[in-house]
């Protein structure tokens, strides 16, 4: 029983980090209808930048700088790559796929192919239902949860957040009311990118830093977005956490590989039974 609880909590911890990354993917899709194949690579860039910046200025400054750099990076990518191709959804898949390869190879050519370890800024373990559990993981989950809450507060309590929701709801009316739609779209892409990089900075001390780190996180994020309902932000968070907890629960009594298969089976079931996502109809 202890193992069940411990792995469920671990699932929740990992799920919150994934939720932060998936939320960035979801907001980009929800507003711009872009399936951003490079989102995992933005996460990877976040881990690399966190390692590099933390090496000179310390982890806490990196945690602040990395999302800001992500925002800037997102704005540049939106202007140079996304905006010229946004008219055709299929074209954005191709361009973001190309961007994914460019990011990976740029990091490989400059940072090197060698995987690196980033030391956690908080050391130590605590006993958790029979496991010695890393304290930094608990911090990472709490921080990710805080960022998610802050994101929703931003959307509901600020003018810019209201504009984003307005453009999402009815782009033409938003334009008629004088909302700078083009700039809102650019900022939204930048915000989604910043969330991926922030997720990378948080996850870097837990996982490994290398040019392919983002390849594996992308499918998990997509699963959360699909199960939560494409563009449904709260659904995405719920789905990311649910999937991770489910995997943790199944891992406690069965082969962890079976847990991953179960997640994929759940996604297939949702696509068959509720093609618009598990949380379709919920507030966006």
């Amino acid at each position, binding site marked *: 029983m202890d193992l069940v609880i411990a792995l469920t909590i671990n699932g929740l911890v990992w799920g919150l980090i994934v939720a932060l990354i998936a939320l960035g993917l979801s907001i980009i899709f929800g507003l711009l209808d872009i399936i951003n194949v490079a989102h995992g690579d933005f996460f990877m860039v976040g881990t690399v930048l966190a390692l590099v910046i933390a090496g000179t200025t310390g982890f806490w400054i990196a945690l602040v700088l990395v999302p800001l750099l992500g925002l800037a990076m997102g704005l540049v990518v939106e202007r140079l790559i996304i905006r010229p191709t946004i008219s055709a959804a299929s074209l954005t898949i191709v361009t973001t796929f190309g961007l994914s390869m460019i990011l990976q190879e740029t990091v490989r050519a400059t940072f090197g192919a060698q995987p*690196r370890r980033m030391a956690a800024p908080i050391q130590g373990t605590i006993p958790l239902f029979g496991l010695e559990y890393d304290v930094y993981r608990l911090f990472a989950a709490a921080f990710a949860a805080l960022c998610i809450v802050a994101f929703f507060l931003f959307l509901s309590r600020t003018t810019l957040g209201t504009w984003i929701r307005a453009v999402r709801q009815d782009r033409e009316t938003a334009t008629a009311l004088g909302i700078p739609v083009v700039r809102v779209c650019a900022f939204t892409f930048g915000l989604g990118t910043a969330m991926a990089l922030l997720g990378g900075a948080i996850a870097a001390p837990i996982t490994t830093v290398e040019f392919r780190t983002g390849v594996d996180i992308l499918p998990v994020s997509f699963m959360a977005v699909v199960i939560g309902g494409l563009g449904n932000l709260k659904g995405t968070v719920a789905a990311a956490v649910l999937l991770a907890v489910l995997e943790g629960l199944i891992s406690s009594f069965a082969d962890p590989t079976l847990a991953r298969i179960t997640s994929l089976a759940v996604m297939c079931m949702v696509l068959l039974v509720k093609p618009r996502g598990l949380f379709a109809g919920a507030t966006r």
Partner: protein
Amino acid sequence: MSKYQPDRRSFLSHALAGGVAAGTSYLGLTRDLYAQASGPIILGSHCELTGGFASWGYWHDKAAKAAVQLVNEQGGIAGRKVELITEDTESNPATGTRKLRSLIERNGANFIVGSVHSGVMLSAIPVATELKTVYFSAGEATEATGSKGTRYSFRTGTDTYALAAAGAPWAFENLGKNWTIISPDYAWGHSHYQEHKAMVERLGGKVNDPIFVPLDAKDMVPYLAKIPQETQVLFSVFFGAQSIAFYTQAKSMGLEKTMKMYSICGTMEAIAPADLQGAGEGVYIVENFPRVLKYKDDEFHREHNKRMGIDDVDAREANSQRVMAKSHAWQSWENVFALKNAIEKSGWKSKNDDKLVIEALEGMTLPNSLGHPQGTKILRREDHSGMVDCYISRVENGKLEVKKKVTKEDLIKALPPRFDFSKETI
């Protein structure tokens, strides 16, 4: 629908043009096959320049290039210049197979210095065999010189069978008798599990259920939590990013306090233990080629390090953070010299003489030299496997300190050949 309607005249002209093209290309092919006895010898390097194994592939590429440069400085092979053509497998078996065909069929590679990726090399061997081309594997999956090996498949380094024989008896005696094996869920990991399980059980130990980790797993906690508490030896087999994730997360869970951490060279390959910032301390590793020069301190090892541009402690590249995949990449260096020895010994002139090279390689002794800086080795006649000295090392203060040397003679005694390719017809 097309409005094009071929008439008899256009059909004949196209057929004639096609026939001329086919005939010309056939003549070109035969020219390549039979008229190259005096041109350069073309070696193909089938290498992971990108993808998951890129941090290893970089060194295999560099080693092969450095070896070819050295060979050419020394006058080439049998007086003929050597050209090296490299193809990137992208660490992907499907791509690797396609690139191997390109190396042999389009670029005319005479011999192949092959992949270190188990999946790539295992899918490459049938192609190399079909195209009747000698292929040197550098990965560890035992099948390459075992159940999936052929007369054309060679390996100068160790496989999972040899690594189990080299390290498991010592680890069983000194570290513990209750083992759990955790490895990636693909050919390399499964191969290690089978060989080590057989070895430990033969010695009278207990091997718990294996834990196979999907290659895309980022969070290792669900897998580490499954390790039975009675485990005395945790044998891990990972590479690259997953290695670091494993050591980092195992350390954060304090596993090293209750069990001994034991592994093979691949798990610490292209990684400086010091870069793990303490997470690798106390881990035992079976090495093929000591990371630290002083454990095989001779002029050949020193010159090899110099030519590879690495330091003598961490095997780190000068002016970069890269660490040489030293326990594997030496094969890409030495395979070039093994081929040089075999070509010169056999009198090989062209592809028609490949049988002579294969016969020369079978049972060949490769003496400790600049061409073979890892040490003297025997390329066993039956299973085409290299019998080499191995080293059991421990990470102490961020360095790999050798604790025991297992000689090739000891290894030969513990490793009866299970296959005999030398009886296969060519």
